């Protein structure tokens, strides 16, 4: 099913979705756009390239409360925080970010013990993917083509959206999307020209090129394994790294977390919060031993985790080439330049 809506009427669609559940959509904030829960339908703003933070927080929030407890009281009195999973709509997600959900699904929702929080949020959410504007130049940090993702790839979205001049075309991809779109009153019927435009756009998306060529993940994984002990290489790559961890926080596929107890006046909450392998105490053991005291060891861990260990464990690279880590690194470290250098090392 294909429908359309004028972009200036997008707040009407937002209002309908807000009635049905929680709407998360791009909003212009001081430093740039971010996905936030929409409380005012007028705030939805699709005039963005990509958000500063990835949309992973829709399923894996920065802080997820597990349980509320009273310090020193029996465990039976502690109250697990139950997820209020009413339907949610994640609106305007770029194809590379949609792909990140599939990668995270393997970790949280398929392999070994299932993470109940990720699963519950994921199942309750309908994803509105949104093609990059291929009439505009690609950002120089992006390299999603390298990972086999294109600018207008509808795969993984429930509903996929394409911009046509001052209108938005919405195409259903999954039965979940089909069901929802049929219920939305704010949408208009499309013409044959619209249908043709949509199909053409999807085709043209494949030709829209980001930097770098496709890589063979097995070749990269093996190469990284072979240069693990090349301390000179990793020292050179990490020479300017500040260990600030921003690359991991903005990353759509970084999932490391800490579990913290936060107490006040005899009451407390146990939560998980995002953590980062770039921090010195991330691997500090109770004995005092720390296998990664040096910056190069931590940067090596991050790069090897994404481009080697994750392939060995789950069969896929844990990166979608969204370019956020490169754009937002305060000292211009570019993960893909590291991969290129590694292949030549």
């Amino acid at each position, binding site marked *: 099913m294909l429908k359309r809506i004028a972009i200036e009427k997008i707040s009407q669609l937002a209002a309908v979705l807000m009635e049905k559940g929680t709407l998360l959509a791009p909003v212009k904030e001081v430093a740039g756009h971010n996905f936030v829960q929409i409380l005012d339908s007028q705030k939805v703003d699709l005039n963005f390239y990509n958000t500063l933070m990835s949309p992973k927080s829709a399923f894996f929030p920065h802080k997820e409360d*597990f*349980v509320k*407890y*009273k*310090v*020193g*009281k*029996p*465990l*039976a009195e*502690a109250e*697990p925080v139950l997820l209020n999973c009413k339907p949610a709509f994640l609106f305007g997600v770029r194809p590379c970010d949609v792909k990140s959900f599939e990668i995270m699904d393997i*970790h*949280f929702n398929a*392999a*070994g*013990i299932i*993470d*109940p929080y990720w699963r519950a949020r994921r199942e309750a959410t309908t994803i509105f993917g949104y093609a990059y504007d291929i009439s505009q130049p690609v950002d120089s940090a992006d390299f999603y083509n390298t990972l086999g993702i294109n600018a207008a790839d509808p795969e993984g979205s429930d509903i996929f959206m394409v911009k046509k001049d001052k209108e938005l075309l919405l195409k259903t991809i999954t039965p979940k999307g089909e069901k929802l779109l049929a219920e939305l009153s704010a949408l208009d019927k499309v013409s044959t020209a619209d249908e043709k435009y949509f199909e053409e756009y999807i085709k043209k998306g494949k030709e829209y090129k980001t930097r770098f060529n496709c890589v063979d993940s097995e070749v990269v994984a093996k190469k990284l*394994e072979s240069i*693990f*002990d090349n301390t000179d290489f990793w020292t050179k790559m990490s020479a300017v790294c500040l260990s600030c961890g921003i690359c991991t926080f903005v990353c759509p596929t970084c*999932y*490391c*977390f*800490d*579990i*913290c*107890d936060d*107490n006040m006046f005899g009451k*407390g909450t*146990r939560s*998980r919060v995002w*953590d980062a*392998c770039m921090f010195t105490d*991330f*691997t*500090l*053991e*109770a*004995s*005092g*031993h720390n*296998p*990664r005291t040096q910056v190069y*060891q931590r940067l090596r*861990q991050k790069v*090897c*985790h994404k481009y*080697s*260990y*994750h392939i*060995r*464990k789950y069969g896929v690279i844990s990166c979608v080439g969204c370019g956020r880590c490169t754009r937002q690194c305060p000292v211009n470290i570019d993960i893909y330049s590291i991969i290129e250098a590694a292949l030549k090392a």
Partner: protein
Amino acid sequence: MSNNPYIPMPVQIAKIIDEVDTHDIKTFRFSFLNKEDEQNFKYMPGQFAELSIYGKGESPIGIASSPTQQGFVEFTVQRAGAIVPGLVTSALHDMSEGGEIGIRGPMGNSWPIEFLEKKNIVVVGGGFAFTTLRSLINYMLHKENRSRFGEITVIYGARTPGLLLYKDELAAWEKRDDIKTVITVDKGDETWKGRQGFVPAVCKEVAPSPKNTVTVICGPPIMIKFTLPVFFELGFSKENILTSLEMRMKCGIGKCGRCNVGYKYVCNDGPVFSLAQLEELPRDF
């Protein structure tokens, strides 16, 4: 494990044993408050669990009791705090019998019992790192299990006699004829009548035959470093030397991304590895 793997099950401290003369290592015997939790907590020697105290946090600790012991589960815990705050272990050490904490688990793989069956087993332990080895020894010595294993040799060392764990059990094992127990201390005192010497030297002296034999070794890195060459010289292959790794952990279920060594998560894929398996991993531990 309950439906939500992050929510601990309540247990009560049934017994506390002050193990060493420095009073910083205690064995805690826990009984489950819910019968259902006890039935679900099926473990094997070598596994660990997260001990959980609301308001303090969680610590991953190896299970020191054997699954052949019914009705309780034991953990031997050292009070941390010299380098890290040691909030959980300190709080636990300050608790009394009857106190209540939480537990999540069991977690990780275990000593590979099927692989060990019909083989001679040499257990080498040093200092505090004897807890899951004790679990394994008691498992193998259980009357229903003893015949499944060949000769059992235990070589256990501590810095001083007062730092030896499980003293009553060590004495009981020494009296048995179906286990060879060799206890050593780095430095004895006026009352110590036993052996003196470092674990590597004692291993050399005991010189177990590598024929159909597996060595299971846990101890401080310095002990492992000097003991492994002894076993290589005796002819043990890397496949037949097993150890248990430590890494900082949080979730214990392979999700939080903290304890990886290469593509293996120590909490899920380990903590037990053979030297041959470790050799395939990057030196990142």
